[in-house]
């Protein structure tokens, strides 16, 4: 099976010359979403932010939140499916204890999962760190949208552990950035990746240097 070419719709609406043909030219296929679906828009942006910080800004992604959730989730499913299978192969009355154990385990694990994402993960979509001459910088990105609103809020949190002589100086900064999805998606739902990257870079610079942006 070969992918021959892109659909004509894309090539006709998007006749922009391939500008960012660096190392990732193959992966840089256009991102197209249904731009009347806020969830789609947010997901596309969230995904791209992760890609951006890993590929362009060279942060190492820390997947702890996702991994914890995956482990808890699969464990819960494992208990459920095992309980179902065990109940299937053993007579009802003999399987009762095992079924109770499985049900309790399933609900406990699910509760933990919900609590974890409520308490620890919140709206975090990216955690990553990078080393710059022995200084460790950790960045946390949270994003959210208000219901029925086209404004996408990106919250940057930056913790830098900078070595100065013998002591370690910890620098904390936080920066919130809000813009309408309309800035990055055209009428056909094609994402203007460059524009989005420019905005992300701007936020990154602000948070790194600690300079406040100029109010417009």
């Amino acid at each position, binding site marked *: 099976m070969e992918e021959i070419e892109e659909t004509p719709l894309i090539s006709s609406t998007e006749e922009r010359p391939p500008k960012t043909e660096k190392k990732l030219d193959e992966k840089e296929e256009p991102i197209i979403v249904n731009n009347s679906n806020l969830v789609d828009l947010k997901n596309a942006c969230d995904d791209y932010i992760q890609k951006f910080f890993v590929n362009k800004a060279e942060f190492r992604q820390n997947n702890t939140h*996702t991994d914890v959730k995956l482990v808890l*989730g*699969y464990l819960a*499913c494992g208990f459920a*499916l095992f309980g179902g299978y065990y109940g299937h192969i053993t007579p*009802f009355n003999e399987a009762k204890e095992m079924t109770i154990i*499985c*049900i309790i385990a399933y609900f406990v694990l699910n509760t933990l999962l919900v609590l974890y994402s409520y308490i620890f993960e919140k709206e975090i979509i990216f955690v990553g760190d990078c080393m710059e001459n022995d200084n460790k910088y950790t960045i946390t990105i949270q994003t959210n949208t208000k219901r029925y609103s086209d404004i996408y809020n990106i919250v940057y949190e930056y913790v830098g552990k900078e070595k100065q002589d013998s002591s370690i100086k910890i620098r904390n900064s936080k920066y919130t950035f809000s813009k309408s999805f309309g800035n990055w998606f055209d009428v056909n739902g094609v994402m203007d990746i460059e524009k989005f990257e420019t905005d992300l870079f701007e936020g990154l610079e602000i948070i790194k240097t600690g300079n406040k942006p100029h109010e417009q």
Partner: protein
Amino acid sequence: MFEEEIRFLRKMNKRQLAQQILNFLMIISSALMVWKGLALYTNSESPIVVVLSGSMEPAFYRGDLLFLGMPDEPVRVGDICVFKIPGRDVPIVHRVIKLHDEKETGKQYILTKGDNNQVDDRGLYNPGQLWIHREHIVGKVRGFLPYIGIITILMNDYPQLKYVLIGFLGLYMLVNRE
């Protein structure tokens, strides 16, 4: 047909893919656990069954949904019970018409008959079997809901329908986020 869906799946990294599969599994396992919980709560192996025959008319018709429970008290004459005959998969819902309690052991000898049948169920039992016992009984009928079970009957009659439906639901779950 599924080009877009396949493209969607291929674009994801392995954690996202694992998350999508997990979403799908979560739905199955939640349903399973609710069912099992209900089974424990009602003390009945399958707390909800569908009537497949007209043998209990006019009480129950084909496609009625029955809610079962298995209380601690013994079975009584007149109870409508769902029972399973050993070696046969499909349970039967009929009324208890004759019953003997053994004094020492408390073992019950039960004879059933469909309200709409001319004769009792001895012809339905295994050859030589005259009575059924409490351990064969899945539950007593506690309540019913008419017509809903038709969907189940259709899916049993046309298994392809079931697979197509499950397949589409699964695919939908896999390629949709949130």
